[in-house]
């Protein structure tokens, strides 16, 4: 079973992601409330997939993606974002260029999340 790391500063949303993923059969999930903690957890245990928010206090997502791909260039990352100065696509484009395998613009629904995760993990 794939091990998944969730990084998001929004606790309510993290809980939701966990619940959705668990419903889809992914039960090996760890959570981090910001990039620093995410990177720390990643160094401690290997993960098959990282799902990270982009706009977070302290260490934001783009920086986190750079560090994670530095640790493991093959790591599969889904970047999520709800906005930026112009719109969510702005940050997501950058994230994709810097190593995110897939992007999800918030708000997204259950099947968008689960389909993306399935697809990426079966590659």
């Amino acid at each position, binding site marked *: 079973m794939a091990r998944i790391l969730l990084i998001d500063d929004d606790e309510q*949303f993290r809980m939701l992601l966990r*619940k959705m993923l668990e*419903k889809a059969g992914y039960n090996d999930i760890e959570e981090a409330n910001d990039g620093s903690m995410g990177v720390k957890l990643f160094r401690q245990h290997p993960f098959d997939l990282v799902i990270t928010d982009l706009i977070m206090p*302290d260490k934001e997502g783009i920086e986190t993606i750079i560090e994670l791909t530095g640790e493991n260039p093959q790591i599969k990352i889904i970047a999520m974002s*709800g*906005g930026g100065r112009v719109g969510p696509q702005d940050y997501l484009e950058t994230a994709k260029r810097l190593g995110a395998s897939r992007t999800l613009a918030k*708000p997204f*629904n*259950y099947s968008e999340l689960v389909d993306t995760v399935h697809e990426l993990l079966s590659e």
Partner: protein
Amino acid sequence: MSIPDQPNSEQFLRIIMDNMVDMVNMLDANGIFYFVSPSHERILGYRPEEMIGTNAYEYLHAEDKERVVSSFINSLATGIAHEIFRFRHKDGRYMWLEASSNLIYDSQGIFAGVVVGSRDVTKRKEAEERLRESEENFRSIYNNAIDGIFQSTPEGRFLSVNQAFARIFGYASPEEMITAIADISVHYYVNQEDRKRYVKILEEQGSIEGFEFKARRKDGKEIWISNNTWTIYDINDRIIRFEGSVKDITEQKSLALQLLQAQKMEAVGTMAGGIAHDFNNILSSMIGYTELAMCEPDEKERLSDLQQVLRSCDRAKSLISRILAFSRISAVDRRLVDLSNPVREAVKLLRSATPTTIQIRLNIASNDTTAMADLTQMHQVVMNLCTNAVHAMRETGGVLEVNLTPLDAGQDNALTSPDFKPGPYLLLEVKDTGHGMDDTIVKLIFDPFFTTKGASEGTGLGLSVVFGIVKGHDGHITVQSKPGRGTTFSVYLPRIQATAPQETDPGQKVAGGSGESILFVDDEEMLVKLGRGMLMKLGYTVSDVTDSSLALEMFMEDPETYDLVVTDMTMPCMTGLELVREIRKIRPEIPAILCTGYSELINEEKAKQAGFNRFILKPVHFRELADAVRDVLAEQKTI
């Protein structure tokens, strides 16, 4: 005292010649010098013997020769000539001489030459020349100036205006403008009060700089003018006239407005980014939990998912209040609150987002921490100050200290600020051990858009909003900082010596009805359904309608059926206010509750003035609606 011997005539002449200031010379009929007084050497540099035998004509300036000769010829008839001309000095430069000549005749009465008396008037001529040049310069400046220049009487007539002045105001010439404007106050000023103010300042101060007012052009168009004026007095200190210059600043004014608009748009753009981000997060939770709830077979789990949806709705509602707080048009909800709660909550939130290298210390007084305040705004103040403090220490780590203590400010420990009144205060201190700031930055930190953070880290609006909130609570904020020695923000809020009421327990049973009939009107179908659902659950009978005109018809059909009207404000056809007015014509005593989102048209005070018994701001909470309906119906029963 002895009198000198009487000199003979030759001696006498010599004494005069040697001592005279002016020059005398004699020319023969051909213009050749045969007598030259010694004073020539002092004035023109020539010794008499150098000039004797030479022709006077040779010494004249080329431009003056013709005029001098012609004057001499004329003198043959009149016997006398008077002329001013340039004469060459021995060193080559020309001197201005003023000369008078008389004809000399020999013993037979034949013309033999002239005797010329002359004086050096170079200095006078140069002064005259300078004056002429200066007048020419002035005239040139006056005529070619881009700014309008004027002289006017204190009573309000133009004495003179230059070409530019006339051009600015659309007149063909200065003369046309002077004639057309018979009364400056009436024909020139758009607002006569401006003219009165202008004259008053000049009477009191004698001059004015950059006086801005709206003036009227010949074609009636209004333009903005900036005016500099000084006053000219007579010897008795009475004002004779005003003189000055004017500039058309209409374009500048419009540019300033455009700039202001651009800044506003930039702020809106920045905010829109932040709002989108927060809203999308909230929407994600709403969508996700709703989806989960829809396919959740276990009722307990489903309820838990739905609670999360409701929590998201609360977050959205709070976000709206924050946006409104930002734009300063919020319906601020100030009530008696224990400030220790928002401070504790904000710090709790912050802990999860703060690196472990930063230690957080929270010291809150055990009692006496009540103030009249808006909870959302207080939360915002603490969050903002703490976030800045954390930011200042994020690289080095350090200690964040948040203190909330009661303070009785007397004369001795009051702030130096002139509007700080002694009395009971609550002091909120946010201290960090970060990089600190120098005086230049300290002066700027409350300015909107000022930030030391990078582009993606902050808008620079935070502290200016904090400042606005503190001032809005009749409080004060000060900052102490030194580079490398941390920063302390001190917020003083007026303390209320009372205990804040406890927050209502959300789990507490809500007040229900017993079949009272409610007419519920809102043009949004979804909200009507929601309202009906809530009210029916509470035990009321509900007639709902999305069209306000139809609502009125329904009411008129059977006015006695209804116990209460709950209506939205902004609706097509008829507003909530109009609807209730019409309904009250039939049943003046029927109670009404207004539910509305933010609207410039209505606020709580206006709603009450308009006769509504309660005002609820959307989005409406179940409990809020339940309480309002119950209270209004109870009041009705006691009447």
